[in-house]
């Protein structure tokens, strides 16, 4: 598929002849430089936009509305509503599907316990740290109850220590709750660590440059995994493809 935008200065091709496929339950990483059309790609997949040419299918849905019903998008910014408590922010997802507030909260509570957020369920977003806000945002994404997860630079706004912690945390959370996942990031290490397979996108117009089968041993802790020789080799190849 391709995507072109009309701007004041003419037509911009954001994505060109891009073909990709993720198997059910697979974690697919998409790495590219800033501005290569990564976020556009996710908005196309989840049905917020339509491609200029080509087709997209997500979980059997082809039309934009059908794709929207299949995909949950976790945006780069947490976008928590400042007037809602942390728990109510996560409960927003079921609420918007017509679940009553009280039942929606009951659905969010077990996730909060699992994510180590239960102490903060009544706190307002402004009182939470960046890492906690992303966890709440991820809980909200999961509670949308869709089979496909689209993660757009989920930890892009965090400091590197929190980022590493949350990568490990997300790895565990996705193992506990497996979903077909598209992770978009500019961080090669993050993609290789979290995903089964990683696609490297070229500069705009974005198209697939290289494909790396990450699929590394998942049982080791992060610090050991990212320093293993095979990880380092993959990272080098990825960086080469990006250059």
């Amino acid at each position, binding site marked *: 598929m391709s995507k072109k935008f009309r701007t004041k200065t003419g037509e911009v091709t954001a994505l060109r002849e891009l073909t990709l496929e993720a198997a059910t339950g697979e974690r697919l990483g998409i790495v590219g430089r800033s501005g290569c059309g990564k976020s556009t790609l996710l908005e196309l997949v989840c049905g917020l936009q339509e491609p200029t040419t080509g087709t997209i299918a997500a979980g059997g849905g082809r039309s934009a509305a059908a794709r929207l019903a299949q995909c*949950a998008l976790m945006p780069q910014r947490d976008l928590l509503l400042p007037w809602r408590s942390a728990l109510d922010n996560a409960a*927003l997802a079921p609420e*918007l599907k017509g679940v009553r507030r009280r039942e929606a909260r009951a659905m969010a509570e077990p996730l909060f316990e699992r994510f180590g957020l239960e102490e903060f369920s009544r706190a*307002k977003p402004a*009182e939470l740290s960046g890492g906690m806000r992303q966890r709440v945002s991820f809980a909200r994404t999961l509670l949308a109850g869709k089979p496909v997860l689209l993660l757009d630079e989920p930890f892009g706004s965090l400091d590197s220590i929190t980022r590493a912690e949350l990568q490990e945390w997300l790895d565990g959370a996705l193992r506990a709750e497996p979903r077909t996942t598209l992770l978009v990031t500019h961080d090669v290490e993050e993609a290789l660590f979290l995903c089964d397979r990683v696609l490297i996108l070229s500069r705009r117009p974005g198209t697939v440059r290289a494909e790396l089968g990450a699929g590394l041993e998942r049982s080791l802790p992060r610090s050991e995994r990212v320093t293993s020789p095979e990880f380092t080799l993959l990272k080098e190849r990825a960086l080469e493809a990006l250059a």
Partner: protein
Amino acid sequence: MTKWLAPAALLALLVAGWEALAKLGHVQNYLLPAPSEVASALWRDRDLLAPDMWVTAREVLLGFGLALAIGVAIALVLHLSPVLRRAAYPLVVASQAIPVIVIAPILVIWFGFGMTPKLIVIALICFFPVVVNTLDGLEGVDRDQVKMMRTLGASRLDLLRRLELPSALPFLFSGAKVAVAVAVIGAVFGELVGSDAGLGHAIQVGTAELETARVFAAVLLLSLMAIALFGLVALVERRAVPWARTSGERR
């Protein structure tokens, strides 16, 4: 405590200067009454001024409430219908160019000396800041937040109820604070054109009788009323939109 010291000192200095000017400058007290004379007029004529103040306060509150309701309703309609927005927004702006001085006497002819023409004058002046601010708030919602809500399956009504209205609330209060301050002017204006009660009426009568100290006392009461109402709206705002404050402090 120290927070109050500077404004209190400045106020005291101004009042003292005024007192000195009026007393030592041999200014006729019907031209410029000294603050002490204004204070004593306030006390002496309290039975005269108090009922007038209640009349004006009621007009202001009712007119402000009316303006708030109409303003929010118009903002909502203009927000929900782009066609109406294009068509009607210029008219809303044009309504502010109509001099109230022209309209007020006509309203008195239509509705008499009662409260109705005052309410209309107040509402006419006050609805505008409410519309403009609320509409800005509704239109200024974070686009990414709208996208997020849409991926979660939000309907148009969901967007309005759970995102746009709460987001617009701090803006609505900004408009309301402007509106409540000018509402007092509106009330006095309505009364000056034709009334038998209210502080505007008291000012008119006082001016005719050269009771300048009483006129100043009435103006003082109007100022206090505006400050009190502004404070009241600010208080409600702090209760209703606590997040606007916390996020502001964090930035």
